[in-house]
């Protein structure tokens, strides 16, 4: 910290970041540095060596993940706050950090081939991807609305770029513009909500910083006890939760999802579906169980209704579509419904556990399972040669089993994990959420979840049927697909993770 600031006011000395604070966000700094490295490489490497760029990014991400795993707050006390309360780290934020890193790593694998097939710049994509990843990692740790808003917006602006990345593709641009308007609207609502909370709690005695999550929580607890929460605060909280629900894609803010997911480049679709959804889910969880926890009695019914409607809207919507990417997008909405249900359980029954896991851990496990299933499925879509932006990708799936048994099995395990077929990790994750719902006695939500699972099995397996049963079209070549070693390795690793992950969670964790 700059010494003269401490001379001005002793308060600065107390707030000054210490070496330990910087160390705690070393993974984020490393990811941001890695993103700059991508650009530098693009500037200075000769054309022949450009293929090193994604390789550096991936190696870097693996190293960062190892660093975060070995040096993170796993070893520290439950909650570590740094930068004068701007950030807060604990076991769940460390877990969700892994979700983001894993998602970025897998997206890089997909993007490498996808972008080279389409003659688009690989380095720039990786640069933006890594910036967004670092922003998400900070977002999950934020404990103050300034860091929260900034991290969220950094990620959002980067995602606009990633969605509209293929400048020559009408679909990609259209998805980009639609995402821009939807995202901009949600940001504006969110900001207005933050402003209302800041303003209405700023005048309360004893609150020195009405943007700080901890202080907001305390002020709301006092006000709730006295039945004196101002309507302005409630409106602000509603707007904030609405803005976050937009990012998560929860009912009634899920209308943008199918179009954007369909038009975006497939690697971006996978990243949006996993990292962006994880960010929305996790922020909703930390807001609902953190600063807004005193209002749990008011929020729980609201979230329960949203969870039921999200589950139904996602599953029924997916049932009605035939395009693979749209089906997966809407099924993602139903997964958001499951996460909402878990958050609701945390509000109804604080400290609820399922098989020894608390709600935050269940959400992280669910997100990890979802990452594995999504990327196995997306890998199949990307590996199929030249699935044009406008052609229906499900036609390209036909005859897949004969063309490439490896890809077909990847699709099978991916779909199985998404649908929650035992013994996949997706099944265990769903089981944990359902167990939480039973504990919290949320029978309506539980019913909607079970109905959702039943419906989802139908549409998930109709995708699989295209690949396994349906014959190819007459003019379609059924030449066997040759997969590079890296892709085979990745599919093998993800498949192993989808099977062993669930058993690990159940018996070891």
């Amino acid at each position: 910290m700059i010494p003269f600031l401490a001379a001005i006011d002793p308060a600065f000395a107390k707030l000054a970041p210490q070496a330990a604070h910087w160390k705690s966000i070393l993974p984020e700094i490393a990811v941001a540095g890695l993103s700059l490295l991508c650009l530098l490489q693009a500037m200075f490497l000769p054309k022949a060596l450009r293929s090193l760029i994604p390789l550096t990014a991936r190696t870097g991400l693996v190293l960062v993940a190892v660093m975060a795993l070995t040096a993170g707050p796993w070893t520290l006390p439950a909650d570590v706050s740094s930068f004068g309360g701007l950030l807060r780290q604990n076991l769940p934020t460390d877990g969700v950090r892994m979700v983001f890193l894993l998602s970025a790593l897998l997206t890089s694998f997909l993007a490498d081939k996808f972008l080279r097939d389409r003659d688009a710049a690989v380095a720039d994509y990786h640069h933006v991807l890594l910036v967004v990843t670092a922003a998400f990692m900070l977002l999950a740790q934020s404990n103050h609305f300034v860091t929260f808003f900034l991290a969220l917006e950094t990620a959002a602006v980067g995602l606009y770029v990633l969605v509209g990345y293929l400048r020559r593709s009408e679909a990609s641009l259209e998805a980009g513009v639609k995402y821009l308007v939807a995202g901009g609207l949600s940001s504006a609502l969110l900001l207005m909500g933050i402003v209302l909370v800041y303003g209405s709690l700023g005048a309360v005695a004893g609150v020195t910083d009405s943007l700080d999550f901890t202080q907001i929580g305390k002020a709301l607890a006092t006000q709730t006890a006295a039945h004196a929460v101002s309507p302005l605060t409630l409106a602000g909280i509603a707007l904030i939760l609405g803005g976050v629900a937009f990012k998560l894609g929860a009912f009634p803010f899920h209308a943008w999802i199918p179009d954007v997911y369909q038009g975006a480049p497939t690697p971006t679709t996978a990243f949006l579906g996993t990292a962006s959804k994880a960010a929305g889910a996790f922020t909703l969880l930390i807001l609902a169980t953190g600063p807004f926890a005193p209002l749990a009695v008011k929020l729980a019914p609201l979230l329960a209704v949203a969870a039921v409607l999200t589950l139904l809207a996602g599953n029924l919507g997916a049932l009605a579509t035939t395009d693979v990417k749209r089906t997966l997008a809407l099924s993602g909405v139903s997964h958001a419904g499951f996460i909402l249900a878990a958050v609701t359980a945390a509000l109804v029954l604080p400290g609820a556990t399922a098989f020894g896991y608390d709600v935050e851990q269940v959400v992280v496990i669910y997100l990890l399972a979802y990452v594995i299933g999504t990327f196995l499925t997306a890998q199949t879509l990307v590996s199929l040669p030249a699935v044009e932006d406008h052609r229906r990708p499900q036609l390209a799936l036909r005859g897949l089993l004969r063309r490439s048994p490896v890809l077909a099995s990847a699709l099978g395990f991916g779909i199985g994990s998404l649908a929650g077929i035992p013994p996949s990790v997706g099944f265990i994750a769903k089981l944990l959420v359902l167990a939480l719902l039973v504990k919290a006695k949320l029978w309506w939500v539980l019913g909607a979840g079970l109905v959702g699972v039943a419906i989802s099995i139908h549409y998930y397996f109709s995708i699989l049927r295209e690949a396994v049963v349906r014959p190819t079209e007459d003019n379609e070549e059924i030449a066997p697909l040759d997969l590079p070693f890296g892709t085979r390795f990745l599919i093998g690793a993800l498949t192993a993770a989808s099977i062993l992950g669930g058993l690990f969670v159940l018996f070891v964790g």
Partner: protein
Amino acid sequence: MENTSLAHHLILAGLLFVLGLTGVLMRRNLLVVYMCLELMLAAATLALVAFSRFNRTMDGAVLVFFVITVAAAEVAVGLALIVALFRKRGTVQSDALTSLRD
């Protein structure tokens, strides 16, 4: 400042916000929609400054700078996307965005 109260500022900010929201939902030209989005952000900024002034806390005034920076970044990316779409399609009417459907 002597004759205005917090309520005056908030009513103005609320009006601007609703105006922007109406524009986003009703208008068909993407550029106008985008301007309306910026209007919503400006409304939030105005409320932020007013709260900061009347609550006598500086945090709001500081957040305003961040919001302006974020809005600038958003506009840069947003206009680039809209221009690229215009080059491809020759129109920025949202009714014409129909290539994505089932």
